[in-house]
């Protein structure tokens, strides 16, 4: 098989739409173009039928009923709706919210806004493997805690939280449990009942569906109520007004169905691919460190630090490969990844991290090509690195008084 360049290994950022998903969507642009809210003619009914099938498909993937799925524009909106909606609705019961330092910005920044509006937010630390310790959560909960928001799996280091144990802790105090499940759903088992989840954010484009469509799972039994954040026609049981994006919803449904059907076999394949990449790199390059948990990790994730080599310079060397880095230089803020910092990775090592996100369309050949390229570039950049030279000379880099700039 011949390799096609560039190679995409950034599947935490987004995924390619599966051709089977595209095929399912196509009729909904032209033939079945009706407004799913139109009740008076067949155009509306057939569109609605497509939407309702998708609702069941997405619900089935997480052990929910289709009736509990609220369509949104994506995970950012789902996180906003869940957290702001639950906080606003329950503010008379208490004003304490708990989340975690390594959450996605869509959760963290939403919580920060609520803080400005008078809510009290606790940002839990994580263990060195990137996971929340249930005991830490238990200790942080009070009678005033109305909502706990914890992600299923981390987008940078792929660590998977003990979500069922955490859900049980949340319910000891009767708070609502929101899970940003974006990175885990479709890749690892996730059941809203087993984890006692009240609200869960999902996104289609992280699971081989289209961009611009997401969902919020909202539990019906017992009924969870949230305050709508968008006013309008009262769609989605009044929780999210706006005409439904029918083709994308249909695509999301198909994507969910495929992920559910292929999860076990695809999970095994991705894990083997990830280990091939990790072993290939670590057997040929010294001083590499895997960030996050090896045991509780998304199968397609490899986040690895290459000591003495700056991440952005690595990305530049891997120009035919799409990956990302926790280096400051790749962000506008010039701060290294807050997730890596939260798991105790020192700043100098955070600058050297590369995230590989393997997905459905990656192959052994691609992994072998990338391994070879990475090994070559690390060696080349280490030849260029004064830090590597000093380390080789036995100089302790920590003993040097660096002038921070």
């Amino acid at each position: 098989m011949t390799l096609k360049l560039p190679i995409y290994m950034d599947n935490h950022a987004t995924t390619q739409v599966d051709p089977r998903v595209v095929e399912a969507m196509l009729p909904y642009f032209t033939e079945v173009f009706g407004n799913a809210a139109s009740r008076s003619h067949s155009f509306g009914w057939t569109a609605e039928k497509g939407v309702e099938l998708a609702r069941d498909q997405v619900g089935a993937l997480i052990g929910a009923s289709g009736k509990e799925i609220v369509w949104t524009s994506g995970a950012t909106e789902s996180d906003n709706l869940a957290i702001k909606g639950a906080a606003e609705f329950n503010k008379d019961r208490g004003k304490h919210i708990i989340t975690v330092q390594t959450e996605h910005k869509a959760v963290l920044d939403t919580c920060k806004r609520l803080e400005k509006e008078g809510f009290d937010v606790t940002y839990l630390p994580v263990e060195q493997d990137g996971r929340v310790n249930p005991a830490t959560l238990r200790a942080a909960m009070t009678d005033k805690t109305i909502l706990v928001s914890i992600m299923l799996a981390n987008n940078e280091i792929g660590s998977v939280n003990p979500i069922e144990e955490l859900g049980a802790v949340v319910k000891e105090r009767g708070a609502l449990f929101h899970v940003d499940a974006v990175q885990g759903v479709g890749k690892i088992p996730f059941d809203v009942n087993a984890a006692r989840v009240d609200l869960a954010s999902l996104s289609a484009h992280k699971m081989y569906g289209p961009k611009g469509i997401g969902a919020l799972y909202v539990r019906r039994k017992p009924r969870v109520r949230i305050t709508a954040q968008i006013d309008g026609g009262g769609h989605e049981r009044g929780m999210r007004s706006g005409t439904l994006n029918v083709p994308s919803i249909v695509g999301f449904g198909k994507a969910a169905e495929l992920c559910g059907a292929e999860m076990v076999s695809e999970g095994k394949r991705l894990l083997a691919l990830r280990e091939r990449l990790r072993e290939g790199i670590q057997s040929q390059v010294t001083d590499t460190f895997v960030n996050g948990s090896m045991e509780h990790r998304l199968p397609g994730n490899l986040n690895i630090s290459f000591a003495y080599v700056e991440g952005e310079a690595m990305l530049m060397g891997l120009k035919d490969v799409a990956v990302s880095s926790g280096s400051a230089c790749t962000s506008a803020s010039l701060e290294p990844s807050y997730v890596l910092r939260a798991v105790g990775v020192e700043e100098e090592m955070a600058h050297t991290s590369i995230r590989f996100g393997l997905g459905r369309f990656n192959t052994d050949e691609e992994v072998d090509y990338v391994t070879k390229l990475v090994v070559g570039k690390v060696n080349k950049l280490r030849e260029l690195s004064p830090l590597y030279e000093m380390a080789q000379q036995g100089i302790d880099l920590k003993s040097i008084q660096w002038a921070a700039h």
Partner: protein
Amino acid sequence: MAYSEKVIEHYENPRNVGSFDKDDPSVGTGLVGAPACGDVMKLQLKISDAGIIEDAKFKTFGCGSAIASSSLATEWVKGMTIDQAMDIKNTQIVEELNLPPVKIHCSVLAEDAIKGAIADYKAKRAAKREAQAETKSETAKAAV
């Protein structure tokens, strides 16, 4: 981020990579930046008794723009007098490499590295002269 062609060219073919013996009296070493900030540059100049920069070498831990800035600096300083090298401004590096605003600190580091190397060379020379002067006065005393 899109890199300028010149940055890519220096990144792919960095000039004057390597090290001189930092204890050589004709070598000045500038080591600037910090690993925690994601940039460290080591720039070394080999300077003749007449004050001409005869050779330059660098090693850089940092992004492509940092590598290119230091590579360019070594290229520029070769053949310059110490005073000419002291006059190199980071803005000239920014201009030559088309660095975007977020990468200006790379050019500042390169300028600092040149100045650091020259300062190190001057300090070494001063120490040597002092040592020589002492030896001379001791010899003179002995002669009396």
